């Protein structure tokens, strides 16, 4: 009896250790970018590196940890690729990457991960918070420990040194609204024939989506877009989960069409929602007349290129920035700031292949939104 317990509980332990080592393999795989630059560091476990960095923060051996809103979605994956590119370019950096699962992208998960990183003393944390207020406490804690904190993609309300912003809220807003308006005009709508629009956001707490919505509403209030009606504040928050997005998209597409009671244009504000809209249209039972409705939104080109190229699909343009560059810029900024090459009050940064970038009160701006359609969608591969 005693033997049994000892034996099988030992099994538990073995298993957990196996899990560790198993996972460590892929961890090293992630850091090979760093390892490649270093000599004989190929098998240096990240943790060892972490340990030594805590000893000498100022030395070349930096640990940069990146935390997306959630893992496993190609927008953030693309950012990660860019980040790794930068890591490789600079060299001598240990790069950690982890995040909540897509169906549970919560502040709580992020805090859990952060506390781990803080406690083992990484040098730089680059994150995209799920909740701009809730996260600040933890971020401040990190800063107190001398960790450089940057946000990317979405900002935190406090506790960060820099916000690497893909594009200003107004940039996104104009991109989306203008795009939509032009398409609608082309389909015969206009000041004389107003159109109802709806928007699909992510979770209610996402800072960037909310800031975009704000400036979109501002735009809609202006005279040139006043004919775009956000019918009874039709903004939906399915969160990042795939099935929820599909569900709401299907329902929305179902109520699209011509006429006052219907919706003429839907804008996806996340790289989950927009493809879901395209798919929903494809699978709709009797498709609303493509020449009367418009689908558009933020998305990675790959995710919606088929819909854009497909003539009968009313989704013929998407809006995005270059996510890879975003990741790249974030790491560059973090690195330069950590090594002191970049001052807190700098007004510009030379970020490797991206060249000179503006910094406005702690906000590094990547550039303008890029609008892609059938003509140029194939140029991008992310």
């Amino acid at each position, binding site marked *: 009896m005693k033997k049994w317990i000892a034996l099988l509980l030992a099994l538990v332990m073995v298993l957990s250790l196996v899990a560790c080592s*198993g*996972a460590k393999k*892929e961890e090293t795989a992630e850091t090979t970018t760093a390892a490649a630059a270093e000599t004989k560091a190929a098998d240096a476990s990240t943790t060892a590196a972490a340990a030594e960095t805590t000893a000498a923060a100022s030395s070349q051996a930096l640990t940069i940890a990146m935390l997306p809103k959630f*893992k*496993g*979605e*190609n927008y953030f*994956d693309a950012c990660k690729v860019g980040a790794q590119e930068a890591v490789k370019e600079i060299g001598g950096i240990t790069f950690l990457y982890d995040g909540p*699962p*897509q*169906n*549970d992208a919560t502040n709580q998960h992020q805090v859990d991960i952060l506390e781990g990183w803080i406690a083992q003393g990484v040098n730089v944390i680059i994150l995209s918070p799920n909740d701009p207020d809730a996260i600040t406490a933890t971020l401040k804690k990190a800063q107190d420990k001398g960790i450089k904190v940057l946000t990317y993609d979405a900002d935190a309300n406090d506790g960060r040194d820099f916000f690497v912003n893909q594009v200003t809220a107004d940039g996104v807003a104009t991109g989306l609204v203008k795009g939509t308006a032009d398409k609608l005009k082309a389909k015969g709508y206009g000041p004389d024939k107003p159109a109802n629009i709806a928007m699909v956001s992510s979770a209610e707490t996402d800072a960037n989506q909310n800031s975009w919505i704000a400036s979109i509403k501002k735009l809609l209030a202006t005279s040139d877009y006043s004919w775009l009606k956000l019918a*009874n504040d039709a903004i*939906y*928050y*399915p969160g990042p*989960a*795939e*099935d929820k997005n*599909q*569900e*709401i998209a*299907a*329902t929305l*597409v*179902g*109520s699209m069409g011509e006429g006052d*009671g*219907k919706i003429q244009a839907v804008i996806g504000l996340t790289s989950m929602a927009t*493809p*879901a809209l*395209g*798919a*929903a249209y*494809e*699978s*709709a*039972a*009797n498709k*609303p007349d493509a020449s009367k409705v418009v689908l558009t939104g933020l998305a990675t080109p*790959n*995710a919606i*290129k*088929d819909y854009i190229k497909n003539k009968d699909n009313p989704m013929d343009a998407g809006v995005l920035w270059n996510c890879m560059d975003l990741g790249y810029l974030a790491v560059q900024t973090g690195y330069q700031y950590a090594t002191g090459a970049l001052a807190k009050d700098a007004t510009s940064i030379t970020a490797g292949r991206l060249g000179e970038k503006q910094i406005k009160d702690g906000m590094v701006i990547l550039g303008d939104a890029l609008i892609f359609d059938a003509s140029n969608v194939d140029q991008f591969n992310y």
Partner: protein
Amino acid sequence: MPSEMTLGLFVVIIFALLCVVAKDFGSVNNIMSILNRFSYILIASIGMNIIMITGNIDVSFGGVISVMCILMAFIGKKGAPIYAFMPAAMLCGAILCMFNGLLITKLRIPAIVATLATTQIYAGALPLMIEGSIYDLPASFTWLAFEAKVFKFVPLSVILALILLVIALLFMKYSRFFKSLYAIGNNVKSARLAGINVDRTIIITYAIAGLILGVAATIIATAGQRVTTTMGAGMEMTFIAAVVVGGTSVTGGSGSILGTAFGSLLLSIIAPALYHLGISDSWSTAVMGAIIIIAVSVGALKGVRRKRTDRAKEA
């Protein structure tokens, strides 16, 4: 069976009412998207139902679905047609669920705990295999959702579900095996006395459920051009709800596929109904939870009353 029919009537009435109060609810598009959702809920619920009739349960359905979705995406990415990846998924489902069955019968681990554990393992293993999602899937993958329409507007998935429903009904009626499920659910001891190999039956039941689940997973996976590692997360509750609402007793031994069908329909209406009534989707979870509890309690109360009448009858 009157109870299912009352449920059916109830659902139909609700449906009718919604069509009246909420314009657009009755629109072809809406009904079809409801039916599409209905189709996979129904298919999966049939699997859940046969398991619950034996007095067991499987909460790992969600995790298993996620696994199958990724598997299909893997195969489908290279342009493999549906008749290639669907069977693969079904096989995979059968194996995973069978494993649950083994844990439950051979090691006597309560079904819900065993499957809770396997859920975590399945759900956790996926993100290690692939970084999150498989996207940019070819048209051959999304064929079922995008192209396959009967009479240009009825999704094939719905037909698929209805066919499966009929098959299930036939088996429940005419197969000795499925009759024995009820016996097990009623009284394992007597079932053994009647010469039924209880353990084997339960394991097979789980395998069958997994097999059917593969079809449901196909419908879920092919809904878009991207498959993520969390496609099925949390869905099991919907299925359990559908079965319980359908009148299957949670302690096993009773219940009918037909009831489950109506239950699935009711559950697939909730979200769109809330939308069309202008109620926030946020309430859908609560509504579903409430529906389950009401359904279970009603069943339990019936049981209590029966006990009373029993004692009277013994007189």
